[in-house]
């Protein structure tokens, strides 16, 4: 294992790879992903659809085992989760590591009351008795800002609105006091006003419980407003990684630069927006060199021949690019 740093990370992911399919047609959905999460820290995973961010999250908990193969290591408190048995994983999922999913409409069981769904988690992961569990359920609903919590325990998911259902999801996820929360696009299906409420909630809970969070999103604005660290993914790999302020202020990978420039912020109205030319490569036929080379404005011959590794020159920031962008900030603003 790696050296212990000042804040020893609670989650350390090294060279995580997930492959779907078998035989001739294998899809390398996630390749050599490494990152770590400290207590109370929020890591953002950003990228376009199909870049492997959700699969990475699922692979951490072994949820993609059924359909594919995961290699590499996921150290959770010094223990490699990738090789743990399904029975061991069941104890960890929902207990020490919890997950919230993108669609609050489909990820709750419509046939069970909200109270029962919170109770389920507590029964599985804590030694509380029935009255303690009920008290905790009320406390959790209260905590996530659901008014009249006690009376709403007996209600079914369809009686809640989208934002309220996402709060219920968070309440279920946090009921057993996890040390790590994995959030897969928790606000994508919600309106901006509700999104702001939910993100604030996650932010304050992370600080209050000293809980690590991995937040998957495609919205750079969400990353800017909530995360401490960010990793940008493209075609299954991390292409740029570092502190949010640094990466968003002065992105160095041409893909990150392109993503930031496509957001219509600080652009004169009704002028053409920047867009990255072309489309992401198919994971079935990735180029030999850098996966982004076909769309990259700064590609060189080298980029088409070999793949740049994620290198960490400054200690603070890692970029996988041979010709990283040096223009600081200006290109974006």
């Amino acid at each position: 294992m790696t050296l212990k740093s000042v804040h020893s990370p609670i989650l350390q992911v090294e060279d995580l790879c997930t492959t779907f399919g078998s035989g001739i047609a294998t899809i390398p959905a996630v390749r050599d992903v490494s990152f770590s999460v400290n207590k109370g820290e929020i890591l953002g995973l950003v990228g376009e659809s199909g870049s492997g961010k959700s699969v990475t999250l699922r692979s951490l908990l072994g949820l993609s085992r059924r359909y594919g193969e995961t290699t590499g290591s996921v150290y959770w408190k010094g223990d490699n989760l990738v090789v743990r048995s399904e029975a061991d994983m069941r104890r960890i999922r929902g207990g020490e590591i919890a997950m919230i999913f993108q669609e609050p409409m489909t990820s709750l069981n419509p046939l069970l009351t909200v109270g029962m769904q919170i109770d389920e988690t507590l029964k599985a992961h804590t030694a509380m008795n029935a009255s303690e569990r009920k008290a905790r359920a009320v406390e959790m609903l209260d905590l996530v800002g659901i008014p009249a919590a006690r009376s709403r325990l007996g209600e079914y998911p369809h009686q809640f609105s989208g934002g309220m259902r996402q709060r219920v999801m968070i309440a279920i996820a946090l009921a057993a006091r996890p040390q790590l929360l994995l959030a897969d696009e928790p606000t994508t299906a919600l309106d901006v006003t509700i999104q702001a409420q939910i993100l604030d909630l996650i932010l304050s809970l992370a600080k209050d419980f000293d809980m690590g969070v991995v937040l998957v999103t495609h919205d750079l604005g969400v990353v800017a407003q909530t995360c401490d660290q960010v990793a940008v993914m493209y075609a299954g790999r991390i292409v740029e990684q570092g502190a949010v302020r640094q990466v968003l202020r002065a992105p160095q990978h041409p893909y990150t630069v392109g993503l930031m420039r496509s957001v219509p912020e600080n652009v004169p109205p009704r002028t053409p927006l920047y867009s990255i030319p072309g489309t992401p490569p198919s994971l079935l036929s990735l180029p030999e060199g850098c996966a982004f080379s076909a769309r990259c404005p700064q590609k060189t011959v080298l980029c088409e021949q070999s793949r740049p590794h994620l290198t960490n020159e400054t200690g603070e920031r890692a970029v996988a690019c041979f010709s990283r962008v040096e223009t600081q900030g200006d290109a974006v603003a």
Partner: protein
Amino acid sequence: MTEAVLEIKDVNLAFKGKRTVLDVLSNRPSRDVHALNGVSLDLRRGETLGVVGESGCGKSTLARCIVRLYEPNDGEILFQGKDVFEASERKDRSYNRRVQMMFQDPYSSLNPRMTTRQILSEALKVHDMCKEVDIPEKMSGLMDLVQLPEDALDKYPHEFSGGQRQRIGIARALAVEPEVLIADELVSALDVSVQAQIVNLLLDLQERLQLTILFVAHDLRLVRHVSNRVAVIYLGRIVEIGDSETLFANPSHPYSQALLSAAPSLDPDDKGKKIHLEGELPSPLDIPPGCPFHVRCRHKTPKCTTELPRLRPLDGRGSVACHHAEEIENV
């Protein structure tokens, strides 16, 4: 620029709720969803009017009313001075040709069993746009217009990505040479970089073909980017309408202010001065009396709970439906 192409006057639309036998016996009124409550606006020739609001506020219902997919209970929609819901106008399908809609979901808005060629030629034939022999030429022109390769004509929708499908949707709308385009969340389902491509295409087409666009979206940055004017809708009512730059730089209605401040900024240091909206959109089944926003408003007074504010013009700004628009400081 100033001539109004479409005038929407005081449109109301309620979707009737089901009444059970019990409701009838106990004389309970039916539970209606009040989707639009007196919306009035004009769409001026050549402009882009952005319509923003939370989900369930009636933006899409308004768009669908305009293209005659829903008929309002009350009020009128005038296209070049004629009421489009009048019997004689209903028979005339030229309105459907001149006002075209583009839909949100690129996966369900194209028939999966038709090739692009069939999709486009159907539009051309229904409206008798050109002679049978000219169709192939017209179609390759359209492909060119939306920047798709010509071999896309013989492919089925599943062979395209989301962005490409939206281009086909745009080509289908443009095939019949419309004057007004209604874009209902045209790019919401797409990734940012693809979003930028479609928005650029739309802006370019607007200039070349002199289109008038109603751009319905919930992404405020995008609306700000494409629109000349913006209307903010809350519970089926316009609460603020005005010039896009003025409204975004200096929103007057407390709801617009909160909505704008909730949009996450790309600047990590731009935290903290958010206005937090408490609670959620009330149900359109049961709209609060007085100003519909008063239950979530930080500035409410007793007057707001009883009296409905009318949309009124403010000096140097757009029109605002708030009793206290003058006193409210912009944060």
